[in-house]
């Protein structure tokens, strides 16, 4: 139960941050990706601040005694750098550049009650599900 409460709070804070940072506004995202036009550095600042806060937390969390008892630092299996990995990353970037939404901000955009965000989320969820099914079968 406690896990669910912490996760809920973290999710709420995360969504608030995505909104304030401009990640839910496609024109801000595209402005950040528009290196050869009128580049908007806002999201680089957002990324730098967020990662800058996370790095020391990771360093501390990896040391013994810093995490509360019962909590263990979960190491991630690194992705294998196969051609598939590069293709997947490029697919993600192309979709991100087309509309200016990635998964977190897309979910938050549902709050705007627009049909566009609902369409994006529905297609994204279907795509995640079908890709997972495909990767399980043929991956």
């Amino acid at each position, binding site marked *: 139960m406690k896990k669910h409460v912490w996760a809920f709070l973290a999710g709420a804070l995360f969504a608030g941050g995505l909104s304030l940072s401009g990640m839910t506004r496609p024109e801000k995202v595209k402005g950040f990706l528009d290196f050869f036009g009128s580049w908007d550095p806002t999201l680089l600042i957002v990324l730098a601040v967020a990662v800058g806060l996370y790095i020391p937390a990771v360093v501390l969390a990896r040391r013994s005694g810093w995490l509360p008892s019962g909590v263990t630092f979960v190491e991630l299996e690194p992705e294998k750098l196969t051609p598939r990995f590069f293709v997947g990353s490029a697919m993600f970037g*192309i979709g991100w550049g087309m509309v200016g939404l990635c998964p977190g901000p897309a979910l938050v955009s549902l709050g705007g009650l627009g049909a566009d965000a609902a369409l994006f989320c529905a297609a994204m969820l279907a795509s995640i599900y079908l890709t997972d099914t495909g990767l399980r079968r043929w991956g």
Partner: protein
Amino acid sequence: MFEQYGVAVLGGLMIGGAAVLLLFTLGYPVGISGFLSKALAGPRKAGWRLSFLVGMLAVAFAMGSMRSGYLVSELGEARWEILLAAILVGAGARIAGGCTSGHSLCGMGRFDVDSILATAIFIASGAATVLALGV
């Protein structure tokens, strides 16, 4: 100045803070596409990840009802483009093993080589797309 960058810094602190909170209470990184994948596999598999997503949606609908201007109601693209982009984002994130949150925030924050590479490709291919299709 504050309107553009101050609020963005606050947003970045909240995003990073949320990731730190999850790390220090559950030990896990934030990865939205991964959470969604687990949620679609069934609530039993998703566990607390479902609560994280519900927390996100709670704030999303609160922000929307306040008409704060942070959320847009239209994406300004043709319907086929929205569909295609969403399919690419969903499939790409699963094939790459993460999206902006898992790779660009948490993975880079852990100095994972695969996440740094993925982020570089996200930004490079996103920039190429904006260059080709316009803002």
